[in-house]
């Protein structure tokens, strides 16, 4: 399969901006949706649209089927042991918050510790900070080295008898390093500490097998893996989901209700209170199918070549500093964050936009990473397999012109 075979599936890629062909290099924030995802959302919205899990009428059944089919698809995609361990949320942020409220509320007491890493997105820092404030617990941080690699050798000393959870990103949205999750989980488990993995980027750029990783929780969003926005997943081990209290109370998360006593439903329903975003969540099925399609050998090989050329050319630009350097066993995903001496990231992003190139700039919801590397922001170009060598060429042409204008 060639990149031209898949590009036609993404209508938005034909857009022109300011008379130039769009170069969409902000995939780490939101990926574009293939036609199959768009069609499924439209089909449900135009033809079925009824509340799931409740009514016996046909429209409701159709929507329920689409929603629950997506759960099966996600279960297979991440190799979860059972569909009951796949909870639908509004995104990775909601998934992490759910754990921060449900799991940790039940297991964390004053003086206990939660460990996060220096490479986390705010979504995997703020919920833990808030929890620690509520519970008078201690937030500890696993640092990264100058190449952006986690100093995993420090885990032995960082983890203590008071550590209740280790929260780590699979792939940092800034540094792009694929962290050795399996090793980290094994280490934490050997010290009786469960692990939550922020998989917002990991689900896109690696083959995720939650049983092989053995993590306790794996959180990700749909909109970065080609599904509709407002969708997300929390995978959790059954042993935790069955004993955790619910987060939100309301419709469909109960078994019986009286004013004196309420019995909660079993997972996953226990954690899906209220009317769900079913038309969007249903598209996770088509998104998983599309991710599998993108694993085509020829396509993967060609994409790796494009990414290699991207990384090498970045390194050759004078005054450019690339953050997050891959090493054997801990490779770099196509998430390229950089700064250029004497040029502000915001100025670059504005000018690139005017030349049709969409990139991210700023702190990227990861202020501690910015602080770690002593910058106020970075520019980030993040690629998806539908990006082409021509787009990489156009990106560098635009970048060089923008730098020349600003210096």
């Amino acid at each position: 399969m060639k990149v031209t075979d898949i590009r036609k599936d993404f209508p938005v890629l034909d857009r022109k901006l300011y008379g130039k062909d769009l170069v969409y290099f902000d995939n780490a924030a939101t990926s574009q949706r293939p036609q199959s995802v768009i069609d499924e959302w439209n089909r449900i919205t135009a033809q079925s649209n009824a509340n799931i899990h409740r009514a016996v009428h046909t429209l409701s059944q159709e929507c329920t089927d689409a929603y629950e089919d997506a759960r099966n698809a996600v279960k297979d995609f991440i190799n979860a042991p059972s569909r009951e361990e796949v909870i639908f949320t509004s995104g990775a942020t909601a998934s992490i918050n759910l754990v921060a409220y449900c799991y940790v509320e039940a297991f964390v007491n004053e003086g206990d510790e939660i460990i996060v890493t220096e490479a986390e997105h705010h979504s995997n820092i703020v919920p833990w900070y808030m929890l620690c404030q509520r519970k008078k617990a201690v937030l500890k941080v696993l640092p990264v080295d100058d190449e952006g690699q986690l100093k995993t050798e420090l885990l032995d000393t960082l983890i203590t008898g008071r550590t209740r959870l280790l929260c780590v990103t699979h792939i940092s949205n800034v540094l792009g390093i694929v962290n050795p999750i399996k090793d980290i989980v094994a280490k934490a488990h050997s010290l009786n500490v469960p692990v939550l993995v922020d998989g917002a980027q990991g689900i896109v750029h690696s083959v995720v097998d939650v049983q092989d990783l053995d993590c306790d929780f794996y959180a990700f969003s749909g909109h970065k893996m080609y599904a509709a926005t407002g969708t997300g997943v929390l995978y959790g081990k059954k042993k935790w989901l069955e004993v955790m209290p619910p987060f939100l109370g309301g419709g469909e998360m109960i078994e019986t209700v009286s004013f004196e006593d309420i019995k909660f439903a079993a997972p996953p329903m226990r954690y899906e209170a209220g009317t769900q975003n079913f038309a969007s969540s249903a598209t996770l099925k088509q998104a998983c199918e599309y991710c599998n399609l993108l694993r085509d050998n020829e396509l993967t090989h060609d994409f790796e070549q494009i990414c290699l050329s991207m990384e090498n050319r970045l390194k050759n630009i004078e005054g450019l500093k690339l953050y997050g350097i891959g090493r054997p066993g801990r490779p770099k995903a196509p998430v390229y964050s950089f700064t250029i001496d004497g040029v502000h990231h915001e100025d670059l992003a504005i000018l690139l936009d005017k030349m049709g190139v969409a990139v991210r700039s700023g702190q990227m919801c990861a202020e501690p990473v910015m602080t770690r590397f002593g910058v106020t922001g970075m520019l980030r170009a993040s690629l998806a397999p539908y990006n082409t060598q021509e787009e990489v060429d156009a990106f560098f042409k635009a970048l060089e012109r923008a730098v020349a204008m600003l210096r």
Partner: protein
Amino acid sequence: MTLKETEDQIIEEFSMFDEWLDKYEYIIELGKSLDALDESAKTEDHLIKGCQSRVWLDWKKENGTLVFSADSDAIITKGIISLLIKLYSGRTPQEIASSDFSVVEKIGLRENLSPTRANGLVSMIETMKGIATANL
């Protein structure tokens, strides 16, 4: 020149650019030629933080008018700041408070003013309005 006349003049200047990049080239030049704020004035008090660029805004009262000086670490933002200073510095609080600040939109730079935490420009305009109102 009245505020209205200065606005019209700036809108006229910007109407000459057909190409987006030419427009930005001009703004970059404005940014480069605006005097930098003294480092001692770049205090936390004067800092308007954004996710993207940082803006420092200082002001004083002079003969019944408000005199602004400002700076940014991003050159395009600084260019727009230079326009805002040309427009509003040395005006009375009444003049500033009654302006709708729509000139930035009229010269086609609206995307630089999206109401997000993305840059400090929106907050800078709000702060200028607030200073004017407080000095009425």
